[in-house]
């Protein structure tokens, strides 16, 4: 097959369209996923913020907390509550962070495949030109 730039250009457009459409679809999916993760994270913080005064009140109702009384159970309860919040929110944050990283990695890999395809295409061009040059030399020498 003789070198035909049009066929390579058509394939290049195909790679570009595939990269663009897949990238756009990934971007939208990733946006939805991140939006959902951030909302869950925000809801969790809101829930903890709402629960903290109720926790203090519960200890007050039992006489374990007042302006004059600061029991060890109350302090332990608050510390456990804070530690639990730190743990849960850190885990949620890390999950969200990992999800973002994985999305970015997916985009990088998509770009890598796109770039590899274009490089393969360019290499094919050079190889085809070299093959055609040999064929032309054969033709010039009478086959």
């Amino acid at each position, binding site marked *: 097959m003789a070198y035909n730039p049009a066929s390579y250009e058509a394939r290049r457009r195909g790679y570009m369209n595939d990269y663009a459409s897949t990238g756009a679809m990934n971007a939208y999916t990733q946006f939805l996923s991140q939006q959902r993760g951030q909302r869950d994270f925000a809801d969790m913080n809101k829930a903890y913020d709402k629960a903290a005064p109720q926790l203090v009140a519960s200890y007050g109702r039992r006489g374990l907390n007042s302006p004059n009384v600061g029991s060890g159970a*109350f*302090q332990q309860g608050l*510390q456990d509550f*804070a530690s639990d919040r730190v743990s849960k929110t850190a885990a949620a944050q*890390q999950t969200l962070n990992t999800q973002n990283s994985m999305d970015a990695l997916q985009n990088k890999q998509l770009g890598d495949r796109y770039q*590899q395809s274009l490089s393969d295409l360019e290499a094919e061009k050079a190889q085809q030109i070299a093959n055609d*040059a040999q064929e*032309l*030399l054969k033709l*010039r020498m009478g086959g």
Partner: protein
Amino acid sequence: MAARGADASERSLGIRRSPIYPEKPKVVASTTGPSTTGAVQPPMQKPGFNVNAGLSNQQNIRASDVYGANNYTTPWADAEAKAKAIADAALAQQSAFQSSLKNVGGASGAGGTGNAGANWQSMYDTAQKNLGAGYDQAKTMTDQGYAALQTYLQNNPNNPYAGFTQQVQPVANPMEQFLSAYGTSNDPVQAQVKAEQFAGEQGAGAFNSLVDILSRSAQGSDASRLAEMQMGQTMAGSGLEAMRGNYQSQNALELLKKRLGTK
């Protein structure tokens, strides 16, 4: 018994001279006395009167004398004509062959300079010139193709993971002020913060190790592609060189065959 001085054809009618060595004019003894001019004298008497008498009186009798000058169609005559034709052809071929041999080596000036040899040399030179031009064209095309590939690869280094790392999100204690407001120590919570921070760093480190492996793989692939391109260019050039050498050998062989007159 033939007389002395007579050649083989005269002594025996069954033996004929080879046409390669034609019969020379022969001086024969004259029965009419010595020639005053010294010229060759033909037989004086026509045959047909008495063969036996003719042989005995040393007359130079020829086959044509016996069978008639105008009807010389003996079996030997046919064979003779054929043999002569074959011999003539062989001689001509041999002459041409020897002439060809003289022209061998004409390309280097060591041989002859016959017209045929000069034409073959001219054809050979033209073929070599065409080959050289064709090779140059093919080499230029090949080099341009690979130069374009090299330019593309150098302008588009494929390392999509360069600078890509997962950042460790700092873990904070959002209830620090809340606990302090109730006179509660933050130390146990800070221990939890440190533990979560450490876990986050571990996770980010694992992810970055993954990215590092992918990055190295991509860079290795890129380097491999460049090496592959250079190898492809070398192979293409070597292929063209081999083709040129092959065609040069074929041309030289054809020239030699022409000069040797072989096929």
